[in-house]
């Protein structure tokens, strides 16, 4: 066991896979010499050489498109896109090819690749550095979309993502890259993709969240407990496949569901969670399911971000409203 931040846990997962599998290569902008703008790949080029960990020219579509070529010809590429808002130039490759090649080739080619990128707000960043585009990617058939919320989960989920024969979009909550430290096993382990985790049992309301919002929900739950409200907290961990069963079991027990995420509310993961709640637990509901999410606006720059980002007291406010409905 070692105490690790999420950055360290992800670096450790990459290190383990580079070490045990010579078909794994890592590239992207600044990931080689510099070790990435967030230092997630720090030290890996030195350890594994420039053929396996390298800086690519600056073009996201090419980074992702070439990775597809590598994946269909015997390699397991892990590419880093520098920020959430810089994934859009690669969207055509992801939507038109990465997600479709296995189906298009009728299984002749599989696409074992991972697209990693930091996502989410709360770091006083420039434009295009605070987006949460998980719904865009989860909507594309053929992809898996994973969002860890802790160092332990980040390591286990990333190893599973690298070992998956399907392409995985791995979104890293940059706001908590270094904010949480946790004991993480030094050896290799993996966590199943598509399985949510019940972080805390409760009986009055189910809160479903993921990524950086888990920590905000935990703060809100502490406020709720003081107010005598028992909250069940689910960390989705995998956006697609989504763990219907865990949501169903929880909402049938509590009768209430609140989805919390930083992404824009309309046509979102929160919308999907409400659909699942209605489909799976309609007759158990005590209150309308709710979304506590970002607005259908661009994420504001630093001065305006406080109006956009979901705070613990806002989550608590919605919990209380739903329980009192």
């Amino acid at each position: 066991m070692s105490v690790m931040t999420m950055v360290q846990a992800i670096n450790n997962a990459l290190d383990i896979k580079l070490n045990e599998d010579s078909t794994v290569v890592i590239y992207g902008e600044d990931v080689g010499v510099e070790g990435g703008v967030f230092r997630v790949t720090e030290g890996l080029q030195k350890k594994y050489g420039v053929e396996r960990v390298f800086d690519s020219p600056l073009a996201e579509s090419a980074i992702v498109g070439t990775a597809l070529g590598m994946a269909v010809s015997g390699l397991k590429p892990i590419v880093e896109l520098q920020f959430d808002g810089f994934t859009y130039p690669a969207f055509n490759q992801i939507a038109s090819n990465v997600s479709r090649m296995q189906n298009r080739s009728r299984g002749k080619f599989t696409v074992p690749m991972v697209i990693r990128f930091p996502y989410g707000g709360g770091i006083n960043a420039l434009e295009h550095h605070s987006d949460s585009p998980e719904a865009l990617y989860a909507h594309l058939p053929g992809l898996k979309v994973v969002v860890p919320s802790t160092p332990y989960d980040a390591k286990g989920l990333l190893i599973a993502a690298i070992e998956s024969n399907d392409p995985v979009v791995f979104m890293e909550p940059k706001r908590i890259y270094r904010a949480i430290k946790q004991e993480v096993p030094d050896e290799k382990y993996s966590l199943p993709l598509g399985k949510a985790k019940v972080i805390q049992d409760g009986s009055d309301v189910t809160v479903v969240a993921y990524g950086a919002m888990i920590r905000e929900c935990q703060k809100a739950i502490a406020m709720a407990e003081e107010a005598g409200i028992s909250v069940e907290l689910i960390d989705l961990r995998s956006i697609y496949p989504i763990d219907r069963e865990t949501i169903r079991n929880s909402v049938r027990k509590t009768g209430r569901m609140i989805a919390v995420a930083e992404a824009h509310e309309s046509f979102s993961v929160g919308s999907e969670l409400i659909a699942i709640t209605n489909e799976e637990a309609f007759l158990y509901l005590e209150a309308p399911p709710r979304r506590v999410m970002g607005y259908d606006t661009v994420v504001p720059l630093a001065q305006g971000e406080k109006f956009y980002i979901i705070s613990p007291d806002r989550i608590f406010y919605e919990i209380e409203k739903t329980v009192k409905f």
Partner: protein
Amino acid sequence: MTQNDLPAIFREFNPIEDKMLSIIDNEGHVVNKKWMPALDDATIVSAYKQMYYERVADEMAISYQRQGRIFTYTPNLGQEAIHIAAGMNIRKEDWLVPAFREMGTLLAKGVTMKEMFLFYMGNEQGGSFQNANHTLPISISIGTQLHHATGIGYSVKYRKKNEAVFTFIGDGGTSEGDFSEALNFAGVWQVPVVFTIQNNQYAISVPTRSQTKSINLAVKSVAFGIPGIKVDGNDFFAMYLAYQTAARYALSGKGPVLIEAFTYRLGAHTTSDDPTKYRSKKEETEWGLIDPLIRLRRYMENEGIWNIDVDKLTDEYKQQINQQFLEAEQNKAYSHDEVFAYMYTDMPDDLKRQKAEYEQFLSWKENRK
């Protein structure tokens, strides 16, 4: 890359000077003897037959489409010299990353007309080329396939395989960002990729002069530091030499090559397109006179090696192709399982649920009869 590292044809036909490599003229006379590839008569006859097979298959496909027996089809008419010259220089272990208008190259790689027909009947099984080694499916999304070729090039180099990668794009595709990005990445990574632009003068209705201010398309290689050459795409020998040289260059580890094959799409963009809306009959007729099949035949006649009984060959090919077509037509076994089966290596629960719900509907429908 210095000029001295370049094979001689790249120096002699420098795209900056807008030179184009031709070896035979429109009458089939050798005008550039120095560059004539050393091919024996049997190889030349075989090349003509392959080009003719593609031509007959194309015409039959258009006819089947008119009969409503296949859906939208993308004819290759007029571009056969490029396809067969490439096909003859691509080995089994080399990679082919196609766009959608190089059928002759696919056939040379082991794809069958049955598969082509199946694809144009709307069955993904046909377009997946299960039995063609190292061949990616048809790419409809313009230009995106160039990145896949570059990535395969990296993989080949990384795994120290003696394999080259051949990929195709049209003149319109060169305006896509992916075209420039792929040439840039391939140059930086120095990977064994042979890029071909089939400049057939039109991207559907838009002429090449509306795509670029460049004097030609091969010259775009210069900015990326890779060799490029403009080649007469209707001259089989010029195309053959270009591919032979490019493949050797790529396999020698020197990096990628860009070939502009200057040609003309004698047919429509697809069977849904009507070229009379955007080009003149006169233009079509003029290009028709320098059809690559006509030029190669004239050469063979001039050299006294023309021994093909065209009527007999036509009958033979028609019969073969029709047989392949009927086999494709009889293949109706597209089950709903196939819609779901290939999206993931392990099917997610939500897909299983959606499939089960569809099956419940099917059994409801069955019981209702």
